[in-house]
């Protein structure tokens, strides 16, 4: 059992899991409090278009997905910055069109592409050293920006109109948030895949939002919870020989159930002592 920690690929997988979990925990918290979950889902799915194009053009998959996701994020930002109420139609559009582009480009690319499923559901055991560097770089950038501009981000997230009136560039913050979501989706492709990444960005944050008193602690708690879920899921996938991405998500969902049960019991105890 302990021998799994000695394998190189397993060590890489665990480091990748932790790095991506913190990216997803931090960005996911911001996405949740800004009510942009559906939007992150749109960006995640549309980045499949980038994967298809990268396959066709013969460029690295992550470069293709990264560029495509960033462009989708900028497009959504531009379309929705004035009319946030119309955001869902645009997201639905970008979601479907991105995936369709991906499928078409895969069709016209000669050869058989057996590993396409791995982009949708993750292949954490195939993480390379350069993937790890990319993940670490993204986490560093996210930490730096969120820490430095925490007050501005907090103001825009809580009340963007008020923030604008106080001279905070809320459009810039909004666009950066979307770009952050796009990049997090791209680095998560290896770990949980682009379909499952939304769960990693929302399940830990759902729990964290309820147990914390500030956005800052919500981000930290989300990151820690996501890391725990990822590592447990990874372990489960190794022991039972399952797809890692799916295991991680199901472990997270189980974690959420446990939270519901524990908080219900806690509330019952609280009421009974009050009586």
């Amino acid at each position, binding site marked *: 059992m302990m021998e799994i920690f000695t394998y190189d690929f397993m060590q890489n997988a665990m480091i990748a899991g932790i790095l991506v979990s913190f990216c997803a925990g931090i960005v996911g918290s911001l996405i949740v*409090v800004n009510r942009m979950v559906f939007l992150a889902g749109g960006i995640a799915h549309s980045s499949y278009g980038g994967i298809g194009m990268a396959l066709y053009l013969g460029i690295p998959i992550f470069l293709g997905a990264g560029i495509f996701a960033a462009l989708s994020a900028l497009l959504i930002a531009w379309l929705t910055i004035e009319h946030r109420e119309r955001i869902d139609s645009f997201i639905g559009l970008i979601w479907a069109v991105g995936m369709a582009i991906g499928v078409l480009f895969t069709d016209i690319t000669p050869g058989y592409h057996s590993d396409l499923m791995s982009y949708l559901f993750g292949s954490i055991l195939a993480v390379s050293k350069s993937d790890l560097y990319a993940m670490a770089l993204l986490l560093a950038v996210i930490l730096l920006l969120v820490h430095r501009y925490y007050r501005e981000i907090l103001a825009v997230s809580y009340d963007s109109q008020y923030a604008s*009136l106080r001279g905070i560039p809320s459009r810039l913050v909004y666009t950066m948030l979307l770009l952050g979501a796009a990049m997090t989706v791209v680095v998560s492709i290896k770990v949980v895949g682009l379909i499952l990444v939304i769960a990693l960005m929302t399940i830990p944050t759902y729990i964290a939002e309820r147990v914390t008193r500030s956005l800052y602690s919500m981000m930290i708690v989300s990151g820690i919870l996501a890391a725990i879920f990822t590592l447990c899921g990874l372990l489960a996938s190794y022991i039972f020989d399952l797809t890692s991405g799916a295991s991680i998500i199901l472990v997270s969902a189980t974690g959420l159930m446990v939270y519901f049960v524990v908080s219900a019991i806690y509330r019952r105890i609280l009421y009974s002592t009050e009586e």
Partner: protein
Amino acid sequence: MKEKERTSVIKVSGVDFAYDRQKVLRNIEFEIYAGEFAAVIGPNGGGKSTLLKLLLGILEPDAGKIEIFGSSPLEVRNEIGYVPQNVDVNTGFPITVLDVVMMGNKNRHTGRRSLLDRMFPIRYNDIEKRCAYSTLEKVGMESFIDRKIGELSGGERQRVMIARALCAHPGLLILDEPTSNIDAKGQKRIYTLLEGLTPELTIFVVSHDLSAVTSYANKVIYVNRESYMHDLSEKPLSIETPEGEHFCEVEMMQMLGERR
């Protein structure tokens, strides 16, 4: 004659505004002086919200001029405290009263932040905390400083929003329907609080609540595409329009009710 000696805070002259081609405001004209408690009333769709956006500099007038403290609204942004309408607040948001009160406050009244403070923006230094505490004291909410905002009642939350606007020490406080979704007791408390802030502060409130307006405000601006101003300190509410129409309070209430 007396008015000329007083400092003008808001001066709106001949303002027109249209969304696309639909004219919303026509020839709006009024002036508010320092220390006054002014209220804007009028039916829904009459242009109250548009007027507010113009005063905040979110929209620009098509014609005419808006001066706040003698400058354009955007130039004196830091002199204006704004309390938005109490709707669509995310009560689940993990944020404390202290965070809300300090929101968007530049260093103007809290001094320059040291390098250490700037390295940890999550922390508030003692000066900032004291500033937040004393502002919360003004609205009677100082004991709630570390509470999560979602745990407060509508009225309490609104008082925190007033504290947030006061924290930057503005000269003018603009409030949009400050007592919507708040029970009668909470409404009275908020209006009494606002009344207590004058005459050091000029207050401009948009409200549906005609009875509150007549008891607390000393100037009323009735906006329904055009504007009619009335000075309550000189005579009780009845507004004479340029066309010679004459509204008494009861008629106006009926009219507001009909068009609502």
